[in-house]
């Protein structure tokens, strides 16, 4: 049954903000929900705990490729048992297994919301998240073999996620076959919030009024998320990062990247930057 909506994005692209909004929309109430209890969305596709539970196995006892082989079956079982639409976060790129089957089966997919953000800003945010230099962040985002949770020395709570390069991550999802796709830009989320979120809510098949959507947006303001994180921490922050909700600004890259770094990033990711309006055909940076 097609009842999973994948909330897919490269890391640091606004996925968490959107899920917090969705939580505030689906769980009616006047007060903003605790950022540490995002209960209305259904976890992350690479959750080791989900995998282990649905396979009745310790994933740490399988090879990484064996795990990948079983992941589509995990989503089939999750979908079969679900009684409503599931909203599942994904950072993996949309990849295929050796038998040419997609990691995320179309048979369970109601749709994909692909959240994309200017890679110039992602570079800076990703450096903070990974506690690495901006230069290292540029290299990681350009690496087509880059994976999250690929640490072989300890047991992560997440399964390995192949990200590919930032450019190929975007291309992999946007060009995925046989699944309804809705691309939402972070910059539109910031600059044209109500219309952007309302359009996405509509794509997901949810019936909410403009008033309700606006209320949920107001309960999910970035400044309030920052405040909550300062007061009580945020469980999705990696131990390496100092803070999760850092700046959230459009164009913050201008304070952190030199000209050579900007040129490198554009060279690495030009295709998707052009396609999604981050670069004009003349080569001007839009945001």
């Amino acid at each position, binding site marked *: 049954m097609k009842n999973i909506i994948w909330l897919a994005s490269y890391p640091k692209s606004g996925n968490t903000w959107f899920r917090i909004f969705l939580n505030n929309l689906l769980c009616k109430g006047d007060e903003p929900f605790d950022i540490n209890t995002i209960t209305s969305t259904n976890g992350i596709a690479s959750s080791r705990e989900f995998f282990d539970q649905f396979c009745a196995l310790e994933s740490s*006892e399988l090879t990484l490729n064996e795990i990948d082989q079983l992941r589509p079956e995990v989503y089939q079982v999750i979908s079969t048992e679900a009684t409503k639409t599931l909203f599942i976060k994904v950072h993996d790129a949309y990849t295929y297994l050796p038998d040419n089957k997609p990691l995320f089966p179309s048979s369970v997919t109601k749709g994909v919301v692909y959240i994309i953000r200017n890679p110039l800003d992602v570079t800076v945010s990703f450096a903070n998240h990974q506690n690495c230099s901006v230069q290292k962040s540029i290299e990681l985002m350009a690496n087509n073999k880059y994976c999250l949770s690929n640490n072989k020395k300890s047991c992560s709570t997440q399964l390995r996620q192949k990200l590919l390069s930032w450019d190929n991550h975007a291309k992999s999802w946007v060009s995925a076959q046989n699944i309804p796709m809705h691309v939402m830009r972070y910059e539109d989320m910031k600059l044209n919030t109500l219309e952007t979120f309302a359009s996405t809510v509509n794509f997901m098949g949810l019936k909410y009024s403009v008033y309700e959507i606006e209320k949920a947006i107001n309960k999910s303001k970035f400044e309030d998320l920052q405040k909550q994180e300062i007061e009580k921490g945020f469980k999705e922050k990696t131990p390496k990062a100092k803070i999760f909700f850092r700046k959230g600004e459009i164009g913050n890259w201008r304070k952190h990247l030199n000209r050579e770094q900007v040129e490198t990033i554009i060279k690495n990711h030009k295709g998707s930057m052009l396609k999604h309006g981050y670069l004009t055909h003349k080569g001007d940076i839009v945001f």
Partner: protein
Amino acid sequence: MYKYKAFGLGVLSEIVLNDLPSENAETDVTIRFGDVPEQLGGDIINQGVRYQLTKNSFLQNINRVARYWVKEGTEIIIKKYDGATNEEIVFFMLTTPIGVLLHQRGHLPLHASAFEINNKAVIITGNSGVGKSTLLTMLTQRGYKMLTEEICAIELINNKPQVAPGPAYSYLWKDAILHLGKDFKTLKGRINNPDKFKIDLSKSYCNKTLPLVSIYVLETKNSPGLIKEELLGFEKFLSLWNNIYRPRIAKAITNPINMLKFNAAIGTQTTVKRITRPKDWSNIDKLCDLILNDFQAQ
């Protein structure tokens, strides 16, 4: 056939089980090779990825290794796949199949390690990667004896919760091994995961069933420092349920009256405490100290 004792059960096995103590006990469970169906017949009460469960029967298919059929808490039948080694077959058998068998027999298997202190059993439980095995190995380095790792089965004997010994080993990731000062180059890696290593703990092994007195539930957080809190009432029950071995299967197979009996016995005879630790590993030694000091202070 070989005879062993595991989880308080006499085991008669066609396959060698090097990590279980040999004992000529009355047979409660038989493990043998044989034909195993590809699907179970009858009323399927739960299924997942390559496993099925009926009221009395469980079937699991481990790719390239074997199919396991666990019947009525008394038998495990194994259909070996070509090329599978006995080591792999035994390894996977001593996880979910034996865990389900314990569920079928009315034990309460937790995803946990356990060790002996002052002739009592102390359990450490929590999600995968939280540090149960690392702590257990660290405790053995400090002179304590292990009871079990991965699966800790609680049984009610005369209404008292008891923990019986399981296999005498631990599996650790490289980071944990380095932290414990061991040389992973001298250890055997897992076939499927060469970054996880087997630690033989047979020299630090307690081969007795012991009364359960304490459970420590480990969780992680994103801030520094260790937090310890005693769980009471419903939170105590929830902590057990949240750490039950193979929860989807447990939910389908556990007799609610049995669960209430465990809850009542553990509720009155066992302290349960939650310890929340930072996600990084820098304080594992302090965590070990905290558990030992807390137990001694009880």
